């Protein structure tokens, strides 16, 4: 009997190993030379599948990461986020700041051989604004004359389209008419929404023009492989106008969304770079040579519903009670900066702006907070804190919950899925939301991007905060092209929010940093800028010293 059973089992095991060894279909390995060899082929992690590689439709950072490397923007951002000529070799700002004229280089090319002309840009931008494409980011163009009207037109759209202030006066000149002087406009053009698409390709393939095999690009890298949700590889495009400058031959990209798995892949030698790191692993990884940290341009904050917590002293107390240093050191763990205001450090004009809020002390000030709470006549003792369910937010919420407990406030944490969370926030926020967690990352590099959030009608004002004087100051800033003068106004706006007499509709928690693991061979040349973009034309693999 035993022999039978054992023989049976043995036979089974042998059969299994044989089957496995024979392989269930070869399949090609997904690149990954795992860091040993210096061959200018690297493997990175995009994180998730880019929802769309159509510049008109891309709204997320992954698509943007890919697009900025396969396309050629008119303008790029330098080290201090100042606009640097790229495909546009120069530009003129005239007419009091209301007209911007870009002069394009004449050596731009598409991968299908067509030359890149200003007409491509005119067509592409108008396409993004058009109501048929229904682009989420069409609003980025609303500073251009006629754009908003065209976007919301229901009839007579062809005429509206012609009225939009984007004109290719010749093959290499693009003239843009703005509704008001916008000093940040040229920097804004570095955003993915302002990239051009190849008209012939889009017209031929319609919705499917971004599929590998159809897609036509004009940047330093071209799309080599794209297996959806699995792998997206780029290879150097030798016919690019500046191809000599590009050292990398190929970038193999995985799509590992689970941070822990990505770290393990890095440690097993399969990745040369991770995209971000789970906060829990930071304590272990921080000292290693592969760890790399970059400042970011964003603020992580807790918003306070001004209608639900009407007494400004309570809001101030709640902000004071938060021990930001503890949160940064123990939970976020990526050396984020404790904030002194809403606009983050690194923003041009930060020094002039000089936000210095008394309500966001680094270590919290529990005594003062309790004093202020005592002054509150009818405190809201049961606060509903709404957060979304991504990793990291729960921990911070739990910590803050215990900090607010010291003030006698019972916080109920309601964790919601992303889409539901966004619905609760509105605006206007659902009445049950007393506090919420949010982060704002800069779209373009001017403090206006942060401060305009708190105008009464802003689509991102989730705190029910409305101050007509604030709105007036914002309008004034919009009409002030002179940087210094404008930064002064920004300072006043920060004061209104978080200054000594500020309304404190929000409690900033930290200013973002970006962390990732990088193989020593690429660490020296790899850089992630303040908007978390990586320019792979600058990356080169070297022998680690």
């Amino acid at each position, binding site marked *: *009997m035993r*022999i*039978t*059973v054992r023989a049976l*089992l043995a036979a*089974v095991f042998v*059969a*299994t190993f044989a*089957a*496995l060894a024979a*392989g*269930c279909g*070869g*399949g*090609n*390995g*997904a690149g990954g030379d795992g860091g040993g060899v210096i061959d200018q082929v690297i493997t990175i992690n995009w994180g998730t*599948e880019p*929802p*769309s*590689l159509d510049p008109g*439709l891309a709204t*997320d950072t992954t698509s943007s990461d890919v697009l900025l490397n396969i396309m050629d923007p008119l303008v790029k951002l330098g080290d201090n986020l100042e606009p640097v000529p790229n495909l546009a070799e120069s530009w003129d700002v005239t007419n009091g700041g209301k007209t911007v004229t870009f002069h394009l280089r004449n050596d731009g090319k598409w991968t299908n051989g067509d030359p890149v002309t200003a007409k491509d840009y005119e067509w592409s931008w108008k396409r993004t604004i058009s*109501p*048929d494409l*229904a682009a*989420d980011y069409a*609003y980025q163009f609303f500073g251009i004359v006629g754009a908003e009207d065209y*976007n*919301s037109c229901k009839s007579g759209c062809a005429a509206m389209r012609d009225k939009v202030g984007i004109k290719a006066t010749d093959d290499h000149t693009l003239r843009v008419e703005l509704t008001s002087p916008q000093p940040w406009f040229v920097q804004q053009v570095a955003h993915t929404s302002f990239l051009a698409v190849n008209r012939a390709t889009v017209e031929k393939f319609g*919705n499917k023009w*971004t*599929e590998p095999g159809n897609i036509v690009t004009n940047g330093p890298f071209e799309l080599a492989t794209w297996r*959806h*949700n*699995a*792998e997206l590889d780029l290879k150097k495009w030798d016919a690019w106008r500046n191809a000599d400058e590009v050292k990398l031959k190929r970038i193999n990209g*995985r*799509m*590992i*969304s*689970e941070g*822990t*798995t990505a770290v*393990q*892949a890095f440690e*097993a030698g*399969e990745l040369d770079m991770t995209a971000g790191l789970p906060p829990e692993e930071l304590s272990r990884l921080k000292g290693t040579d592969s760890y790399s940290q970059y400042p970011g341009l964003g603020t992580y904050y807790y918003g306070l519903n001004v209608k639900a917590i009407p007494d400004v002293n309570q809001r101030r107390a709640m902000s004071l009670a938060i021990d930001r240093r503890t949160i940064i050191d123990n939970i976020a763990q990526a050396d984020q900066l404790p904030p002194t205001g809403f606009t983050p450090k690194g923003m041009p004009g930060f020094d002039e702006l000089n936000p210095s809020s008394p309500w966001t002390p680094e270590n919290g000030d529990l005594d003062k907070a309790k004093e202020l709470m005592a002054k509150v006549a009818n405190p809201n003792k049961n606060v509903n804190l709404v957060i979304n369910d991504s990793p990291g937010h729960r921990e911070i919420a739990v910590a803050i919950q215990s900090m607010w407990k010291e003030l006698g406030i019972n916080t109920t944490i309601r964790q919601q*899925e*992303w*889409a*539901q969370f*966004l*619905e609760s926030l509105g*605006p206007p926020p659902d009445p049950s939301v007393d506090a919420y967690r949010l*982060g*704002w990352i800069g*779209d373009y590099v001017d403090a206006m991007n942060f401060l305009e959030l708190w105008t009464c009608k802003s*689509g*991102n004002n989730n705190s029910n905060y409305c101050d007509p004087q604030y709105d007036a100051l914002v309008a004034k800033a919009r009409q002030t092209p002179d940087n210094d003068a404008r930064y002064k106004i920004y300072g006043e706006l920060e004061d209104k929010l978080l200054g000594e007499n500020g309304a404190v509709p929000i409690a900033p928690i930290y200013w973002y940093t970006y962390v990732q693991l990088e193989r020593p061979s690429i660490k020296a040349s790899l850089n992630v800028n303040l908007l978390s973009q990586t320019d792979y034309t600058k990356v080169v693999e070297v022998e680690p010293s």
Partner: protein
Amino acid sequence: MTRLIVRRVLWTIPVILLVILMTFLLMRQIEGNPFRTSERAIPASIQANLEAKFGLDDPWWKQYVRYVKGVATFDLGPSLVLRNRDVNDIVREHFPPSLELGALAMLFALVFGIPLGLLAALRANKWPDYTAMFVANVGFAVPSFLIATLLIYFFAVRWGDIFDIPTSGWTTWQSKILPTIALGLGPMAYFARLTRGSVLETLQQDYIRTARAKGLRRRRVVVVHTLRNSLIPVVTAAGPILGFLITGSFVIEQIFAIPGIGRYYVTAVTGRDYSVVMGLTVLLAMIVIVANMVVDILYGILDPRTREAR
């Protein structure tokens, strides 16, 4: 017999329509805007454009009818969130890995589970039984996310040099080992218990006693008579379990970064991508219903005792 088959087939149509209707109505109940993916609110005019483009501004019954027409022509519509892809494309590209993962996990479960169950039954209520069942049960009881985590840590990272197994992905045959084990341990335990129970039952049958009484050797009795007869319930259960492995392994797919349908499903529900959710639900439901129907018919043919009384 033919009448039975035809009737069952015909019944699947209203069933599928009902499934579509239920999913449709359920999705409508969830609050959330499929077009708003980031904190940045969408201006009202753009929201209006998007809704018009995807026909979301029509009354719900109109959308339902349009959708059903689409299903009838095998067109599951465009994705609301992934603007350059259709649901058909998504299914075509991502269904095969899930299918493959499910099939491999099933193979693993059968190949290891059945012998384990057999061993346990032949030594019932003695230590080999208890140990085998304990081992099998651990595979079932310990949640697969922990098993997956441990497997990745030990085999791909710690002993990565010895084994050459990647931590994630679904490409080479080495990358398929860990996910298969992580997903297959549970069904393996299930089959082990099932086999054990079934073998024990069969062993008490009179014909086994007869065979023993006739003087047949134990080995022959076990292999020829017992095992063959005990495997019927296992084989019947295998079908449905395969259905599950395919339709719901998203945690494993998430952890191992496998581009399968499960991962898409969760992403689509959380992103409120109505058309993808509908499309995948309809697809999965059809698989389940058709499998159901086939098994019902087969069972009716194989085992007349269990034909439903009508």
